[in-house]
């Protein structure tokens, strides 16, 4: 079945490719619209093709054209220079700086140059020797977690028992030795009972507590 839209699209390609003969006359005869479209298209492209001939300059034009072109080419940068310039632009300013560093020449007096070379050599030897000296290796530090017990204060109450039997044998001997202490103890005990403060106001505990345990004590001991 004839499709005008498809046929017209096909016409364009066929006319552009110069394969207009592939269009069958029978197909065109059946549709006047397609026929008119093909004619218009053909004429349009023929007119534009004619433009190539119409707009073509005369032969005399070309001699002047090539002379002007040669003049322009003569003053244009030559291809190798242009290529170098393109590469340089691609590599950018970093390359330019590096190239400048490498290619820069500085005039240095000979004695100064010799002195600089000797100084460099001396520094090199010194650095080399310094490297050779054995260096005590620092101790290897290993971090090991250690649990340290926390000292806590606690009140220890100790009951001291006196052995009466063993002490009876020495009691005679020790009674004289301890007479002084006993009397002191007794005195302190009585005085302490007598001088019990009514309250603890103003009481300050001492920093050090001195405890004296007396074995084989006085007969007042329980």
């Amino acid at each position, binding site marked *: 079945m004839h499709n005008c839209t498809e046929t017209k699209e096909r016409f*364009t390609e066929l006319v*552009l490719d110069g394969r207009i003969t592939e269009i069958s006359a029978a197909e065109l005869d059946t549709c006047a619209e397609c026929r008119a479209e093909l004619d*218009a*298209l053909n*004429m*349009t*492209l*023929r*007119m*534009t*093709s*004619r*433009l*190539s*001939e*119409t*707009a*073509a*300059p*005369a032969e*005399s*034009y*070309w001699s*002047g*054209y*090539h002379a*002007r*072109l*040669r003049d*322009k*080419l*003569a003053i*244009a*940068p*030559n*291809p*190798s220079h*242009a*290529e170098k310039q393109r590469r340089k632009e691609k590599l950018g300013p970093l390359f330019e700086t590096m190239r400048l560093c490498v290619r820069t020449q500085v005039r240095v007096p000979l004695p100064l140059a010799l002195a600089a070379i000797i100084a460099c050599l001396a520094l090199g030897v010194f650095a080399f020797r310094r490297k050779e000296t054995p260096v005590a290796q620092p101790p290897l530090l290993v971090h090991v977690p250690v649990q340290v017990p926390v000292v806590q204060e606690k009140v220890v109450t100790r009951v001291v028992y006196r052995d009466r039997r063993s002490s009876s044998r020495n009691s005679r001997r020790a009674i004289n030795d301890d007479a002084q202490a006993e009397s002191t103890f007794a005195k302190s005990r009585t005085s302490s009972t007598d001088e019990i403060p009514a309250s603890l106001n103003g009481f300050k505990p001492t920093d050090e507590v001195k405890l004296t345990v007396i074995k084989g004590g006085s007969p007042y001991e329980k």
Partner: protein
Amino acid sequence: MADSDTELIKRAQAQDLDAFCLLAERYARRIHLLASHYCQNTQDAEDLSQEVWLKAYQAVQTFRFDSSFYTWLRRITINTFLNHRRSNFFRWRGQSTVVQLLPIDLDDSGELVGSSSASPENIYNKLLFENVINALAELTPSQRLAFLLRHYEGMSYDEIANAMNCSTGTAKKGVWRAIAKLRARLSPDSHEPEPLIDLASEY
């Protein structure tokens, strides 16, 4: 015996200006024709085509013989055209429908082939030239370029798309729209002089 393209290109790569000028003489007409269709102005066409040759001369060392010289040159031409379009150089002239016919009558720079200014054929040629140039000027630059490459250069849509950095569909659409506009502008039912249509029918 004329030197082959390969020989001339090798000499041009060795900075032989004469060899490059010989290459330019071989292909200058085709490049100039594209340029004149593209920018619709004789002076602009010369400037544009010579710019193409300058670029080709500076890039000739990059030619690797993996395509024909004209294919390589056409690529430079298309890029130059597109760059000119971007730089707005021809826009004000391209938008204009005023056609400069003066160079056609000049002896030195724009004389028509085999034409004499008094002959009826020359008058028709001028009318045809003016009419087609005006129709081409109404196309957008990309439509015009796609049409020129398809119609005058016989390039496929894939080649056009590759050269213009667009999709094949875009290239095809550009050509078809260009043809539709040209057809509307140049068709017999448009208000064009009868002799021109008759002349077109003769060819």
